[in-house]
């Protein structure tokens, strides 16, 4: 299975979509937002807040891109070829999930590094550790949603659906513009999105608070929903294989 993960990671690094949406764009947007005075309030606070937002946005890009890859693999006959090797289907699915989990790391790391090196963000070490862990583990629901789309839709439409979902969730979840700037009706919707809960966990930690129960419950509920969706997509794909 590790050979499979290695192959998939090699492929991800050569994938322009992943590098641009998952790594380059979030870093560029982060630096633009924070250094053109577009972010509100205290400069250091803004650098922290936006750092979490953009790391979350990049992680979403990485997670959804991994899902789009599934549709591409199916169209190329690669999933069938894998079934003709001694790898078990469970190893293939697990390998893809691990790949997704590893693929979000550079996205998160790139923005956090930009925060430290360019915007001189400083936080106590334990806060860094918790933020990194939450940003990383919190991508699982999005990976599952991306995989669900990848299994359910054909190559091109899966990629489109995943990019659209990723952008919608990023904007609606307040990753680009803080929810406080939204009109009240939009803010009311934003508070129910998984992306808002996901980034919210780390926003609270970054400013020395404890995540709210609502954020944890909401993200867990979305995890369940997207998990069921991914399993449904996988079963459907299996029937057509």
């Amino acid at each position, binding site marked *: 299975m590790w*050979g*499979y993960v*290695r*192959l998939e990671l*090699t*492929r991800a690094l*050569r*994938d322009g979509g992943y590098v641009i949406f998952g790594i380059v764009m979030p870093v560029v947007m982060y630096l633009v937002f924070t250094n053109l005075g577009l972010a509100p309030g205290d400069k250091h606070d803004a650098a922290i807040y936006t750092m979490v937002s953009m790391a979350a946005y990049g992680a979403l890009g990485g997670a959804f891109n991994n899902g789009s890859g599934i549709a*591409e*693999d199916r169209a*190329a*006959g*690669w999933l*069938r*070829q894998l*079934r*003709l*090797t*001694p*790898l*078990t289907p469970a190893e293939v699915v697990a390998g893809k999930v691990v790949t997704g989990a590893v693929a979000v790391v550079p996205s998160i790391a790139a923005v956090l590094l930009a925060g430290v090196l360019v915007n001189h963000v400083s936080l106590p070490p334990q806060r860094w550790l918790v933020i990194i862990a939450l940003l990383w583990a919190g991508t699982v629901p999005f990976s599952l949603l991306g995989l669900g789309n990848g299994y359910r839709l054909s190559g091109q439409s899966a990629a489109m659906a995943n990019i659209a979902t990723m952008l919608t969730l990023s904007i609606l979840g307040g990753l680009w513009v803080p929810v406080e700037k939204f009109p009240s009706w939009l803010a009311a919707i934003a508070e129910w999105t998984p992306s808002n809960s996901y980034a919210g966990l780390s926003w609270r930690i970054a400013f020395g608070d404890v995540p709210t129960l609502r954020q944890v419950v909401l993200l867990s509920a979305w995890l369940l929903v997207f998990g069921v969706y991914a399993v449904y997509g996988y079963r459907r794909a299996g029937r057509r*294989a």
Partner: protein
Amino acid sequence: MTTNTADAVSLTSATKRFGPVRAVDELTLAIPRGQTVALLGPNGAGKSTTIALLLGLLPPDSGRASLFGLDPEQAVRQGLAGAMPQEGGLVPRVTVRELLTFVSGTYPAPLPLDRVLTLARIDDLRDRRVDRLSGGQAQRVRFAMAVCGDPDLIVLDEPTAALDVEARREFWDGMRGLASQGKTILFSTHYLDEADEHADRVVVLGHGRVIADGTSAEIKRAAALTTVSVAADGESAWLATLPGVRHMEIRGGRVHLRTGDSDATVMALARADAIRDLEVAPADLEDAFVALTTKENV
């Protein structure tokens, strides 16, 4: 070496339907170890579905498939089989070497990479990205994926479809090497000459059933169709009713009669004073194939 002596491939009354179509219909086929078998048939005869059933890619609706006495999926898990589907299987953004290293790594006792590259004649392509290969090059890489794990059974679905004449010849040279190592090889084709030249045994499929099974010589004999032809001269429909004639075709100003008894047909032509520029050609596999599959349609 395994001690079990079960057939390499066994299908027992296997049936697979797609909607109202029986793609594979009560098909029974056993291939002992070490045989090279050609699966021959026109498009839609059920070749690819048969291959999908025996590799465990599709479950049969009824009947049974096994490889080396094991459930096909189990045999594939153990690395006993390697296969090349008719198309696809090349994943973008990796090099030939990366791809083959990965596939080899999933098998318990793969061939060394250099052997595989030589066997598939892709030494010079090792660092090329697989999404930048020509059709023929891609085909050779797909073949390399099927054999790199050194499996006992190699299944190839139309392996030479994208190859030119020279590449086909080289491909079969490589296959002969594998066959001489005792590998069991099953390949599908609609090139009759390939089945004739490279297989120990030819299995002809039509409408999802085995309609002939034997050496190519046996199949030609079973179909026993010699072609008797004479120059067309006026009304010739009556020639189809001559003794032995099974099939008549008029082309190129000649009447071609496929006959099961060429002596009787020629005698009858002589009696009717209809011999004009007579030619008698022995059966070839093409004729046998056409005869077998058209008989099936009647």
